[in-house]
């Protein structure tokens, strides 16, 4: 079905594809940045930039999957899940003396567990995703603070763990090459080529139709939230390897970035429509933008507002495109 649909697409369809627009935007943004700063196009700088994008890229991927699953799906708790998983990894490594790799593995499982709390409340009990993940946003964030008393944890510097966050293979940062890239490749493949991808879109488009087609919608959505939690925890592992400390505020505010990237990437907020490859392009845009603003010495507090504008602008854009195609 997918292949014939692709074959039938006209040139006009291809040009109006969100991904073409995003790719042009990446290039345009890159051109502007390289004019503004001579450092921008240097290979070292481009690679360091992708390092920064690894963590929010993982969060955005989980977010996009949850939104694609439909029925108002959203995960506001990703930032706090990252914080809490990172702290749990710190407790395992520093207080229990586990090796960093084992602690990382357990932290990812723990992140999945946190996601399953969201998933059970949303998919099984049928509670609204917005309010469930808003309360776990505060719950997990507060727990991270409580567990450390506001301080930070360490104990990750061993067994070559720091290499995950601080080294490069063939010039590409390790966490991008070994974590972010495989995750996106896997997700894009799964979305386009597997039955999981088809079920995801069917469930996201119509609950009822998917149910009638024999899809266990509840279980599918539960899995999406578990996946989002585990990906956020993977983000925590990467952060811990990068900074070698776990801070309880590590993920604060990252839900904004994750949601912005997903919406900018063309994921329809009502579910069922959008490409994960678009999310990857949107990630590139947000990373280039943040990095450029950093080079221009625009502080984090101001960047938050710019990201907010990007989110609102992207949502407006999605509506415009959606309305035109449905009209």
């Amino acid at each position: 079905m997918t292949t014939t649909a692709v074959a039938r697409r006209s040139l006009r369809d291809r040009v109006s594809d969100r991904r073409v627009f995003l790719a042009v935007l990446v290039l345009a943004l890159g051109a502007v940045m390289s004019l503004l700063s001579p450092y921008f196009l240097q290979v070292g700088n481009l690679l360091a930039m992708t390092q920064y994008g690894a963590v929010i890229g993982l969060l955005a991927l989980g977010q996009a999957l949850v939104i694609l699953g439909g029925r108002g799906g959203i995960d506001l708790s990703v930032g706090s899940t990252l914080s809490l998983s990172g702290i749990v990894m710190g407790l395992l490594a520093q207080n229990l003396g586990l090796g960093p790799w084992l602690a990382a593995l357990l932290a990812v499982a723990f992140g999945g567990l946190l996601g399953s709390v969201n998933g059970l409340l949303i998919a099984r009990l049928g509670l609204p995703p917005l309010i469930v993940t808003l309360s776990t946003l505060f719950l997990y964030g507060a727990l991270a603070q409580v567990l450390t008393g506001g301080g930070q944890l360490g104990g990750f510097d061993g067994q070559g763990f720091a290499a995950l966050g601080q080294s490069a293979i063939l010039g590409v940062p390790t966490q991008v090459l070994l974590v972010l890239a495989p995750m996106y490749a896997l997700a894009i493949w799964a979305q386009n080529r597997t039955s999981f991808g088809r079920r995801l879109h069917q469930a996201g488009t119509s609950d009822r139709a998917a149910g009638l087609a024999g899809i266990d919608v509840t279980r599918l959505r539960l899995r999406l939230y578990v996946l989002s939690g585990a990906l956020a925890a993977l983000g925590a592992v990467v952060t811990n390897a990068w900074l070698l400390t776990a801070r309880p505020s590590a993920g604060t505010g990252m839900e904004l970035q994750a949601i912005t990237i997903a919406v900018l990437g063309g994921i329809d907020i009502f579910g069922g429509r959008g490409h994960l490859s678009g999310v990857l392009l949107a990630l590139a845009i947000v990373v280039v933008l943040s990095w450029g603003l950093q080079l221009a010495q625009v502080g984090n507090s101001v960047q938050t507002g710019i990201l907010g504008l990007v989110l609102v602008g992207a949502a407006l854009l999605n509506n415009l495109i959606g309305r035109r195609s449905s009209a």
Partner: protein
Amino acid sequence: MSTTALSPATEPSARVLTLLRDALLPLLLVAEVIFFGLAAPDFLSASNLANVVINSADLALLAAGMTLVVLLAGIDVSVGPMLGVVAWVGATLFVSGLPPVLVVLASVLLGGLLGAINAGLIVGGRISPIIATLGTAAVFKTVLFVLWDSTDVFAGPVLPVLGPARAGGVPLVGLVVLVAFGIFAYVLRRRVFGRRLFAIGNDAEGARLLGVPVGRTSFAAYVLVGALVGLAALIYVGRVGVVQATAGQELTLPAIAAVVVGGTSILGGEGGVLRTLGGLVFIALLQNGVVLMGVPPLWNGVLVGLAVALAVAFDVVTRRTLDKRIGAQK
């Protein structure tokens, strides 16, 4: 108790469930007062209770506004940062010598204007409320940060009724809150605007077909939230005495929590401001009692988060069970 009542095996009657739902918050409030009254001796003293009122008056107005948009099945997660922006502007105008009445007017107007931005995006731009207000929340945070510019603004209460002043031990600001809730309770029950909010929250398409101006009513609701934030911002200034870079940001979740714990359905179309007042009292007493018991304030987020999750779970599960009962009777 509630778990057995909820399990389908026991088949509780719709009346029992409705009763349980309506009586839950009063019961919880009584249990809370008894618990903290025994655990923290100062809890029930008149001066402590007056403190609770003074410390939660700004939150109360935010929660009243939040109730309006939750009734519409919407939400506004920008109220905290919005309050910060208005508080900075209000405090700065007041310090610069503008007459208090004009400061109040300017703050309410500015709040309404910021609310109109949300309204424009949600109603005009057809963006889902969470995305729109998440975006404007980020923008408001940045606006406050830029305005603040590394200088805290110190200011006293703009008017005595917007500060910690008491008359015979009764905090005046509590009267402002009661008047505001009284007005909104009346409007929601008796005025056309109020009934329209319920109609839209229940079924927006149905309401539109019946001739309810859905867009205009929703727009007005988000503007009203902003106006209430404007008033709350001045109460915040009177309470805290200083506007810093992150002023107000901690108030968003408690405001939503008060609405949800009060029993206004997050799915829209059911609830009211008086329930929110009950929810607010529960949250305010919880935060106060926990502090009096010597629990570190870091735990506040955990407790409020848990309260919201439990309240929503209870609301949605009872509502669905009731809907099923009604369906079965038809």
